[in-house]
C-alpha cells in the first residue's frame, strides 16, 4: 500500500507505477491516474490528477524526470504526490487550493530513459528513440519543444546529450504532454522538476530577452526559494534560464509560457556539491520536503492571482 512505501529509496519504474495505483486506491475521491499516451518503447505515460471535483477547473501542471538520470527528480515527484494526497483535508492552504484548482503531477516524464538508467546506463539522459542514419539513440526531451527549436544551446548532433531531435515535438513523450496540456486548455501554471544545481528558473531559455512577466515571475520565484530555505538553509539562485544557467532552446517552460501559461517555472533540485546526479537516497526526503515548501508557495500564489 501507499503508506508502507519507502520514500527514502530510489525505485524502478514498475515499483513507482504500482505505488501510483496504491495511492489512487488509498485516496479514491481525490486522486485519479490518467494515461496520456505511451512512450517510444510503448510504456504507458501516467499523470496523477488531484481534484476535488468540478468541470475543467483551472489547473497546475508539475512534471518530473524528463531527464532520465536525475533520479532525485522522480523520487521527489513520488514524495510530492503522497504529500498532496495526505495533506488534503489537514493543511488548510492546500485544501483551499484543491477546492479551487486541480493539480496534475507526472512523476516519470521519460519512462524509457528511466528504465534504461536502471538496466543499462545510469548516466542516460535522453529518450530512447531511433533515428535513420545514425547509430546514436535518443533526443534531449528538454530541447524538443516548439520554443526557439533548434536555436542556441541545443545540439544538431544525434550523438550529443543535448540533441534537439529532427523536428519540434518529434519525441512522442513530448508530444503526449503537449497534446494533453493543449486539450485541457486551462492550465495556469507549468512547473518542471530537474536536478541538480539549486536553481529556480523562469522563461526564456531560448532567448536572453526578458519575458513581459519577468518582474512578477522573479518575485514569485524569490518568495518560493525563501520558503524553501527555511527548512535546511539550502540556497537557490533565481532568474531566467538564459541568464542564470545558459541559453537553451526548445525547453518545456518556454513552450508553456508562449502558450499563455504565465506561471511557468523549472526547478533544479538540491546538489550537495559532492554527488551530482548520484545524490544518495538519504537526501531524497530532505530534498523533497524543502522543494514542497517552494512548490506550495508558487501554487498558493497561482491560486490567489487568477488571470
Amino acid at each position, binding site marked *: 500500500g501507499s503508506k508502507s512505501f519507502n520514500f527514502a529509496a530510489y525505485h524502478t519504474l514498475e515499483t513507482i507505477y504500482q505505488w501510483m495505483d496504491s495511492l489512487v486506491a488509498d485516496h479514491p475521491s481525490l486522486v485519479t491516474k490518467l494515461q496520456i499516451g505511451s512512450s517510444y518503447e510503448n510504456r504507458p505515460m501516467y499523470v496523477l490528477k488531484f481534484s476535488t471535483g468540478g468541470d475543467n477547473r483551472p489547473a497546475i501542471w508539475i512534471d518530473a524526470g524528463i531527464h532520465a538520470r536525475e533520479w532525485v527528480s522522480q523520487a521527489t515527484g513520488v514524495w510530492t504526490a503522497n504529500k498532496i494526497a495526505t495533506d488534503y483535508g489537514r493543511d488548510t492552504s492546500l485544501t483551499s487550493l484543491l477546492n479551487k484548482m486541480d493539480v496534475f503531477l507526472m512523476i516519470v516524464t521519460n519512462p524509457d530513459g528511466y528504465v534504461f538508467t536502471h538496466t543499462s546506463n*545510469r548516466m542516460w539522459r535522453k529518450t530512447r528513440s531511433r533515428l535513420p542514419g545514425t547509430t546514436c539513440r535518443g533526443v534531449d526531451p528538454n530541447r524538443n519543444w516548439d520554443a526557439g527549436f533548434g536555436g542556441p544551446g541545443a545540439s544538431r548532433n544525434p*550523438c550529443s546529450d543535448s540533441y534537439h531531435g529532427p523536428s519540434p515535438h518529434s519525441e512522442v513523450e513530448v508530444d503526449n504532454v503537449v497534446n494533453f496540456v493543449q486539450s485541457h486548455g486551462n492550465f495556469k501554471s507549468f512547473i518542471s522538476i530537474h536536478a541538480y544545481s539549486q536553481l529556480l528558473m523562469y522563461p526564456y531559455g531560448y532567448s536572453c530577452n526578458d519575458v513581459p512577466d519577468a518582474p512578477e515571475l522573479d518575485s514569485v520565484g524569490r518568495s518560493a526559494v525563501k520558503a524553501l530555505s527555511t527548512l535546511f538553509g539550502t540556497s537557490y539562485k533565481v532568474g531566467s534560464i538564459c541568464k542564470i*544557467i*545558459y541559453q537553451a532552446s526548445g525547453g518545456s517552460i518556454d513552450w508553456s509560457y508562449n502558450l499563455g501559461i504565465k506561471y511557468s517555472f523549472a526547478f533544479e533540485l538540491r546538489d550537495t556539491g559532492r*554527488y*551530482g546526479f*548520484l545524490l*544518495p537516497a538519504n537526501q531524497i526526503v530532505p530534498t523533497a520536503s524543502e522543494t514542497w515548501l517552494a512548490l506550495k508557495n508558487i501554487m498558493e500564489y497561482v491560486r490567489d492571482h487568477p488571470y
Partner: protein
Amino acid sequence: RQLFVGDQVLRVAVETEEQLRLLASLEEDEILQLDFWLHPVSSDLPVDIRVPFASLQTVKVFLESNDIPYTVMIKDVQDLLDEEEAEMEADSVRER
C-alpha cells in the same frame, strides 16, 4: 550494462573568460567522451565534468597546464553506483 570504473567527476572552479573558452574547447573534443554535468557558461557556477578513466590523465594535464583549478568531486563513479545499487537491492528485499 555500461560500467564507469575509474571515471571521475571533476569540479572545475572557473575564474576567467579565457578559462571558460578553454573548457568549451574541451567540450567539443568528441574523442575524450566527456560528460558535462554542468557546462562551462559562467564563472558564477562550477563546471562539473564526468571524465572517463581513459581520458583522465589528458584532462588533468590540460587543466593543470592552463592553471585551471579543480577538485575531484567523485573519485570513482562506479563505487558510488555500486553503493546505490546495493542500497536499492537491500531496500527492495526489506519491502518484500
